Every structure is written in C-alpha cells, then in structure tokens.
C-alpha cells in the first residue's frame, strides 16, 4: 500500500507493507536515522517519535497508520522552539554519553513538557519512564529536563 505523511515538515509518499513498523519505514525508506532501533518490542523507547505531536514508540506503530498524519523526529526540532531548548539542556547538563537514547528522551520530554510546562522532577521521572538509558543513570537527564521545566515555570 501507499502511505503519505508529513515527516519533519516534508511530505513523504512511501510504498510499504501495512504491517511493517513505523520505525522500519522511517529508517529504511526515509533515511530518518535519528530514530534508533533498540529492543524492537516497546521496552526501550529509543525509537520514540512524535505522531501528531504525541510521543509514541515507532516500533509499536503499524506503518499503515501514519497515512495522512505527521511524524516529528529530533531532526524536525527547529531553532527557537521548546524542543531545541530541551536539546540544549541535554548538552549543558551532560545528559548524554553514547547518545543512543537521546533522541527518544528529547522527544518524550518535549511531549510531556507540552502538557505540563512546569512539571516537577517526580512527574518528569514518570513521564520519561518509557525510555531506557544504559549510560547516564538518568539523574543528569532529569536535571536537564527539570531545568527546562523550571525556566518555563518561572516564565509563566
């Protein structure tokens, strides 16, 4: 079948079997290599993307479902946006080592900060519980995201 969707602001049309995963569709057919392949079973969050603005695990989304919808990866995060602020905070707080988990964490953080701009650390910890990091021990990731939430909270 043919699916057409918006990927990071660009219209894509791809021929695919319906029951491939969105992760395969993005990495293999659209060269979206920031979408990482981890467990392929919904447990690690490395493949997280935004589907119509909501964080989802691309390995758990049937490719056929993206027809007519919009997918955002970290490549689609623009300057001057909350997403860029989150990315910068990851850098400032040394919230990454190997970086494999980072795109997924940034997008999960972005989706949850969209809902709760001034979320506290516990709320953020739970919002990021679908993402696994094997390097950092999570605290620096939470430091980074919490710093964004604190700035947003003060700005409100």
């Amino acid at each position: 079948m043919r699916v057409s969707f918006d990927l990071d602001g660009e219209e894509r049309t791809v021929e695919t079997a319906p029951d491939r995963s969105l992760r395969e569709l993005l990495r293999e057919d659209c060269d979206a290599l920031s979408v990482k392949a981890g467990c392929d079973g919904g447990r690690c969050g490395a493949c997280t993307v935004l589907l119509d603005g909501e964080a989802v695990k691309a390995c758990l989304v049937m490719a056929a479902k993206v027809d007519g919808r919009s997918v955002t990866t970290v490549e689609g995060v623009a300057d001057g946006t909350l997403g860029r602020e989150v990315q910068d905070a990851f850098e400032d707080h040394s919230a990454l080592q190997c970086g494999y988990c980072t795109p997924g964490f940034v997008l999960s953080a972005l989706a949850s900060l969209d809902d709760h701009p001034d979320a506290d650390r516990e709320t953020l910890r739970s919002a990021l519980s679908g993402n696994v990091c094997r390097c950092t021990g999570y605290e620096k990731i939470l430091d980074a995201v919490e710093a964004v939430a604190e700035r947003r909270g003060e700005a409100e």
Partner: protein
Amino acid sequence: MTDGRADATGGTEADYYRPETVAAACRRLHEADGRARVVAGGQTLMPLVRQGLVDADAFVDVSAIPELSGVAVADDRTSIGATTTYAELARHDLSDRAAALGDACSVVADRQVRALGTVGGAVAHGDPTFDLLAPLCALAASVELADPDGRRRVPLGEFLVGHLRTDRRENELVTGVTFDRLDPERAGTAYERHAAVESGRATAGAAAVVTLADGAVERVRVACSAVADTPVRAHAVENDLVGGPATDAAVATASERAPEDIDPIDDEAGSAAYKRRLAATLVERSLLSAVRRAGGSP
C-alpha cells in the same frame, strides 16, 4: 484511505482496511472469515507481528470509527468506547469519579504506550496482568460486541474465559464496555498494584468498589489481577465486609481472606506464596482508599 491492497516490500502481503463504521468493520471481518485481525492501538499486536506470531490475510484498523471512541456518562450508565486510549480515559473526569480507572490508566506501561493503547485492546486481548481489567471487573462492567448479525452485551467476568482467552467470536468486534453508575455521594473506588520495576507488568493488582451507608459497608466488590488465569473477584473478602462497619480493622481482617479466591503461579515475577501475601496487602490498600474516597473514616 479507507481500503487498500498491500504490496510486499518486506512485510506481509496482508490487506489493510480502515473502515469508518462498525457495520463496515464487521463486514470486513466477516468477509475475511477468520483470516482478519483487528488492529486498535497496536501496542500488543505489533510485538506479536514482529515476532511472526500473527498470521492474517487482512488487518481491520478500528481507530477511524467515530462511534467507538470516547466516554459517555448517562444518569444510570457509563460507557467507554473500545478505541478510547488510556491517556484519553485518564484525562476524562470519569477517572476522578470512578477513580479506580484513573489509578489504573496512570500506571499502565509508560506515556508512549498509554497514548496509543486502548480499552478495547486490553479487553479483547484478555491478559490477566493488564491493569484496567480488575477495576472494570470490580465495577461489574459488561463488554459490548458487534457482528454482522447484531450486537450483544456480556458481563466481563463471563467474557474473560481464560489466559488470553475470551468469549469473542471470530468475526466480532469489541465496541466498548459499560457499567452502572455509582452513587457519587456514597461510593468510592480504587486500584492498587505492585510491579517489580516501574512501568513493568503488575506482579499483582487489586481493585475495590465500595458503597457506604451510615458508616457501614452496604455493597462491596473486590477484584484481583495477575493472580489467576483471569481477573478474579475476591468473594470471601466481600462477604466478610458487607453489612459490617467500614473501619480499618474490619478491612484488615477481611483482606486476609484474599488468598481464598485466587490461584497465583510461581514465575519470574515471584512465587505463588509471595503473590498470595501481596494480593492481601493490595486488597487492603485498595479497600482503604476506596472507603476513604466514599467518604468513610479510614
């Protein structure tokens, strides 16, 4: 795109349909004669597809059927459409009024899975560890189904017949769940679970629905998850409590009887003996919380 013929580019050659009405979905299922698989959020189905465990000629995606989505609260009954997601249900005020549902929706997996996983998917899959099933069981919910011949309603306890086994006929669609409204002045509900890791599957869970009258327990239903082939009612606990005072002590004594109705197994989550102990503790916690929410003393 409503209908479409698939091409083989790495996946299977299955057809994919996204009908917009229940009737059209039922027709597709009927035509495929047992060779079609319903797709809702895909959060359970996709891992099965990835492991090569799904053998289907067609997928019928129910997510574009408006009738199946959302929560309807009427004077006497509440209905939740099959494609309502955990995230949608958690945001709805129903999750305050029937707080056990909110408790469950907020502990299922993680944010990403809650954004796509649906009530209908949880019910149709019938996994006794799923968090939403014990609250629905304690609310005495019924499952609503449709096929080309018509619609029917089955109590959840009868619908869930075994581990991953339900009473759903091959060509039937789960359209939603429904339950009687509780008296907001006198009833309280809660769900408590324990998992070895945050976001992990429940080792055990317990839901309680309590209605009080003058400090006494007028009606009570307790259901446990992950400790038998299906969610099970803790009848011994219920019988111990009903008609008596809604005190901490009475709840503690009654909760000790939780193991009488459950049948846990030894597995990587814990031994059967551990789960019996755990179930009693979770039953006690859920009852105390439900009584408190009902306006009682604990």
